[in-house]
C-alpha cells in the first residue's frame, strides 16, 4: 500500500516486449500476477503467466445492460477498460472461512488454521479501481473493527496501474474525480503510447518497491515530451466521456428521500444484486454457520451479500426493506451520499460497472439526473 499522492521516482519509456520482463520480474520476486485475460467473451482478472496471456488488440463496447469485446485490428494491449471483475475478488474474497470448531464432549475446541497471505501483483489496474481500493481501505482498515486479512493482503499487493486512453460509454470517472489518470497510490503506472507508428509504454515509478522491480526491466529515461503524454492522453479520454454524475449528488439525494423516481426505478429494478456484486467498493457480507450431519465439526463462513436481498435487512419480525424502492434507495443513497458521512469519501468511483452489468441497464447517473431534474415536482 502506498500513499495516495506520490512524486514519481522516475519516468521511463519501455518497448511493448518489456511487458513480459515486467511480469517475469514480478513472478520471480514471488508475486502471483493477476491481470486482464480474455475469457467467455469478456476481459476478466485471472492469474497471468506471461505477457502472452494479455489480450492484444481488443476493444470493449459497453452500454446499460450490454457488454461486448471485439478485435479492433490494432496491436495495442489496453484499449478496453473495466470488465465484469473488480480487484475486490482478490483483496476481499467472495467466500471465506472465518473459523472452524470441533466438538469436545459438552464443549468445543477452535481449530487453528493459519492462512497464508497471498502476494498479489495486480497488473492493469485502472484509476477508478485504484480509488476503489482506497475506498475499501477506509472500510476495512478502521481501527476497532478492522479486517486483518484484508489489510495484510492489501499491504502485500503490488499495483501496476494502466492509465485509460479512452472511456467506455458507461464510464464517468472524470465527474467523480477518480480518473482517467492515476495520480498516486501505485507502484508502477503504465501509459500506452501508440500513434503514428510509435508503440511504447511510459512507466512512472511510484514507490521504492516499484523501483526495485523496474530495475529488472530495460528502458530509457523519458524525455520531457514523453512525460507530458499521460496528461494529454487522459485529458482526451476525459473529454470523450459521455456520462457524468450530477454535481452535489450527496446533498441532492438527502433532500429527496421521498421522490417519485424511487417508485419509477423500482418498476425496472430486478433486486438481483448484480450492481452491488460488480461494484468495486460494495463490502457487505453475511456470516453463515455450518455443521456436518453429526454435529462434530462446525465452521463459520463469510460471503458477499447485498442490500438487495430480503435476508440482508432481516431482523426479528421480518425484513426492514421489503419494497424494491427501499432497497434501491438504500443502495444509491449509501453509495453517493451517506458513504461520505460514514467514510468521508464517495462510495462511487464512476467505473460504470453497475450500469453495464445491470441485466436491465439501470443507470445510476441517469437516476440521479432524473431526481435533480424533477426535484420538488412530486
Amino acid at each position, binding site marked *: 500500500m502506498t500513499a495516495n499522492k506520490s512524486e514519481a521516482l522516475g519516468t521511463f519509456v519501455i518497448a511493448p516486449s518489456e511487458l513480459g520482463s515486467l511480469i517475469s520480474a514480478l513472478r520471480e520476486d514471488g508475486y502471483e500476477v493477476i491481470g486482464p485475460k480474455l*475469457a*467467455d*467473451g*469478456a476481459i*476478466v482478472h485471472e492469474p497471468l503467466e506471461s505477457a502472452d496471456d494479455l489480450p492484444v488488440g481488443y476493444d470493449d463496447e459497453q452500454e446499460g*445492460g*450490454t*457488454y*461486448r*469485446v471485439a478485435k479492433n485490428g490494432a496491436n495495442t494491449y489496453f484499449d478496453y477498460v473495466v470488465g*465484469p*471483475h473488480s480487484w475486490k*475478488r482478490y483483496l476481499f474474497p*467472495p*467466500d471465506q472461512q472465518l473459523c472452524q470448531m470441533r466438538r469436545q464432549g459438552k464443549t468445543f475446541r477452535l481449530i487453528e488454521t493459519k492462512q497464508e497471505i497471498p502476494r498479489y501483483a495486480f497488473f492493469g489496474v485502472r484509476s477508478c479501481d485504484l480509488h476503489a481500493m482506497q475506498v475499501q481501505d477506509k472500510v476495512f482498515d478502521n481501527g476497532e473493527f478492522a479486517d486483518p486479512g484484508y489489510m495484510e493482503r492489501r499491504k502485500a499487493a503490488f499495483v501496476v496501474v494502466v492509465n485509460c486512453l479512452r472511456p467506455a460509454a458507461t464510464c464517468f470517472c472524470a465527474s467523480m474525480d477518480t480518473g482517467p489518470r492515476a495520480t498516486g497510490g501505485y507502484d508502477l503506472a503504465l501509459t500506452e503510447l501508440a500513434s503514428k507508428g510509435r508503440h511504447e509504454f511510459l512507466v512512472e515509478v511510484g514507490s521504492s518497491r516499484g523501483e526495485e522491480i523496474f530495475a529488472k526491466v530495460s528502458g530509457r529515461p523519458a524525455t520531457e515530451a514523453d512525460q507530458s503524454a499521460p496528461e494529454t492522453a487522459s485529458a482526451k479520454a476525459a473529454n470523450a466521456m459521455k456520462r457524468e454524475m450530477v454535481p452535489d449528488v450527496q446533498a441532492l439525494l438527502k433532500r429527496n428521500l421521498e421522490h417519485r423516481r424511487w417508485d419509477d426505478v423500482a*418498476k*425496472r*429494478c*430486478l*433486486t*438481483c*444484486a*448484480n450492481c452491488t*456484486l*460488480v461494484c468495486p467498493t460494495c463490502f457487505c457480507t453475511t456470516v*453463515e*454457520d*455450518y*455443521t*456436518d*450431519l*453429526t*454435529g462434530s465439526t462446525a465452521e463459520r463462513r463469510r*460471503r*458477499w451479500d*447485498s442490500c*438487495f*436481498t*430480503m*435476508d440482508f435487512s432481516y431482523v426479528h419480525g421480518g425484513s426492514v426493506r*421489503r419494497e*424494491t424502492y427501499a432497497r434501491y434507495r438504500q443502495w444509491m443513497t449509501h453509495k453517493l451520499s451517506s458513504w461520505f458521512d460514514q467514510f468521508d469519501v464517495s462510495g462511487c468511483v464512476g467505473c460504470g460497472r453497475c450500469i*453495464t*452489468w445491470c*441485466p*436491465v*441497464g439501470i443507470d445510476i447517473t441517469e437516476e440521479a439526473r432524473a431526481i435533480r431534474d424533477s426535484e420538488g415536482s412530486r
Partner: protein
Amino acid sequence: MPAPKKPKLAVWKFSSCDGCQLQLLCCEDELLQVADAVEIAYFLEATRAQVRGPYDISLVEGSVSTPEEAERIRKIRRQSKILISIGACATAGGIQALRNFKDVDGFINAVYAHPEYIETLATSTAIRDHVDIDFELRGCPIDKGQLLEALSALLNGRRPNVPTHSQCVECKLMGTVCVMVAHGTPCMGPVTQAGCGNLCPSFNRGCYNCFGPKETPNTASLSAWFAKLGMDQRSIKHFYRSFNTNAPAFRRESEAHDKT
C-alpha cells in the same frame, strides 16, 4: 443406557420422476453419514423395509395431481413432525402443471383408449397448496448439497443456509461472466432462486429457472428486456412455462404474454 433414538426419516413420492429422491442416493460419500444420523424408516427407492409412523422428518417429492394423492398427503402430514417438500413438482406443481392452463378432459380423451379408467385432478399443484409445510427445497432436481445442508441444519437445531436470493448472486460469487450482458443470451437468473451452483451460466447457457421464482421477482421488467433482446411474446411465454410454471409469479407472467 440405550443409545439415543435416531430421528426417523421418510421419503414420499407423489407425481414426479423420482429424480429428487435419487439425489439422496446420489450423496454417495455422505450417504453412510446420513444413514448413521437418521433411521431410514420409509424410502421405497432405497429399501423395501418399512417402519411405521410417526416420522420425525418427511421429505416429500412430487405434485398432487390425483384425488388419491390429495388424500394421502394429509395422512403423511399427520404422521410427520417436520415436512419438507423437495423439488419443482412438490414446490410448484412441476412440468405436469402445464395442464393447469388447458382442459384436462381434452387431454385424457385424446391420449387414452379408455378415458373412463383415468381418475385425475384438473390441476397439478404444490404440496404447500394442500398441507402446511415446514421447509422447501427447490430445483429440478434439487441440489444434493442443499439437501444435506437442510438435514444437517435440522439435526443440529440450526437454520439451514438455503438462500432465496437470485441466481445472479451465485454467478457473481463464482466470477461467472454474465451471459445476458456479455453475450445477449436471455437468462432467467435475475428472477430465479439460487441453489444449483450456477450450472448453466458457467457453461455459457442462460438459466432456465429450475429453482423457481426468487424472493420478490420482477418478471415484468425482465420480460421487457427479453423483448429488447429480440424474443417474441410466444417465446417469452414459453420461458416461464416449464418446471415451475405454476409458481404464482411465473404463472402470472406467462399469462401476460399469452395472446393465443
